[in-house]
């Protein structure tokens, strides 16, 4: 059945696929993960703070983000942010933010909701005795969180955080709806141009599978190494 396949199209477009496409995908994944974990941790601390003024908005935000399809968010942000920018700055015309910024902001905000739940579980996994010990030494709340609770929570949750990052890596392919040249976008463009849809989409699927599978094996190996001795 592979007789009339043209695998040469892949070889011809490798440079474009990886140099343009995959680079974009990886940069977006890395930045959105970093931003998502920082913002997500803040949301988790807000949810656990015990102050309704902080906890209620954070909970609402997380529930909202988790109830909306990601594709919709990507669309919304791309078309809405310019108008919000215009409204905020009072400019005469919508402010163009560019597709990279737009998708980065979308993914950061969206994934923060998931990272929040992971960090919340991680923080709750630290015993109350650890908090008491830090407080008994005179540490303030930020010091207790920064030196004692969050480092332990982060290490306990590292495998889950990385697994979420792998999901994020796959989710970035949804930016194709904005005609962005990420890895899938690049493959799609070559496929359309050369009329080689089956070959290109098959190849894209294999690449996503190999990278995700290798990464999750790496996470497994790492999770044994980073576990805190108890």
């Amino acid at each position: 059945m592979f007789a009339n396949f043209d695998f040469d199209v892949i070889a011809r477009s490798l440079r474009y696929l990886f140099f343009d496409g995959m680079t974009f995908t990886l940069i977006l994944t890395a930045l959105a993960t970093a931003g998502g974990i920082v913002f997500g941790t803040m949301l988790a601390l807000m949810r656990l703070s015990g102050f309704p003024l902080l906890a209620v908005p954070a909970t609402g935000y997380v529930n909202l983000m988790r109830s909306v399809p990601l594709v919709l968010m990507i669309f919304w942000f791309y078309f809405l942010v310019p108008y919000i920018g215009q409204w905020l700055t009072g400019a005469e015309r919508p402010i163009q933010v560019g597709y990279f910024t737009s998708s980065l902001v979308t993914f950061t905000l969206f994934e923060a909701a998931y990272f929040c739940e992971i960090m919340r579980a991680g923080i709750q996994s630290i015993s109350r005795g650890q908090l008491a010990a830090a407080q008994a030494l005179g540490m303030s709340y930020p010091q207790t969180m920064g030196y004692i609770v969050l480092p332990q929570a982060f290490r306990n949750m590292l495998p889950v955080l990385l697994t979420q990052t792998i999901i994020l890596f796959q989710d970035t392919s949804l930016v194709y709806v904005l005609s962005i040249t990420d890895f899938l976008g690049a493959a799609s463009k070559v496929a359309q141009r050369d009329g080689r849809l089956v070959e290109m989409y098959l190849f894209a699927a294999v690449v996503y599978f190999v990278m995700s599978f290798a990464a999750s094996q790496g996470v497994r190996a790492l999770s044994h190494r980073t576990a805190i001795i108890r």
Partner: protein
Amino acid sequence: MTDIQIDINEVSKWYGPFQVLNRCSTKVGKGEVVVVCGPSGSGKSTLIKCVNGLEPFTQGAITVDGISVGDPKTNLPKLRARIGMVFQHFELFPHLTVMRNLVLAQIKVLGRSSGEAHENGMRLLDRVGLRDQAEKFPGELSGGQQQRVAIARALAMDPIAMLFDEPTSALDPEMIKEVLDVMVSLARDGMTMIVVTHEMGFARQVARRVVFMDKGEIVEDAPTEEFFGSPRSESAQMFLSKILQY
């Protein structure tokens, strides 16, 4: 007894409708060692956690070195930094080495230089006999060693008083002595100590007074010999007969 270091005055605490502490009063003088004992659930741990404000209380007053613990204006972290506390389950920070456990609060809370903190940490590790364990992680040490590190960590803050919350209850029998030895030497050096414990041998050896609690109340507060010789209350007699049986 010279000057009062810790003054617990008519302290009561409720968890909802359940009263855990009922008008508890006692005073601890400078350099005095007081053992708090009583059946489980009698409020001993809760009472000493009130002393450094880890547990809030509903009524009454506690002053430590003249500073009111319950006063909302009191800078609690600052006060806590001056009171050492040792926990039943050690509560060393498992992600930090023994030395980092000892220096972290010295540097971040007291603002000491790293060199000074390390020097101080080494001196205290030496004192508890664990100089060579400085670079290990808590999980690599035995329970007794961990508890000695925890004592060193509290001492590193140069506390004016030390609180011990059942420091040997989670230890295997053969490790209890090494921890009690450290505590005895601390007491001999004149440290003000409140110790919640069932180690009656320790109480006999170093405690000036024994406070006996039952159902959230301080039932007896007597000099050590008097408490063991002729406990007045029935509940204290019962308690002693149970734990001194073997």
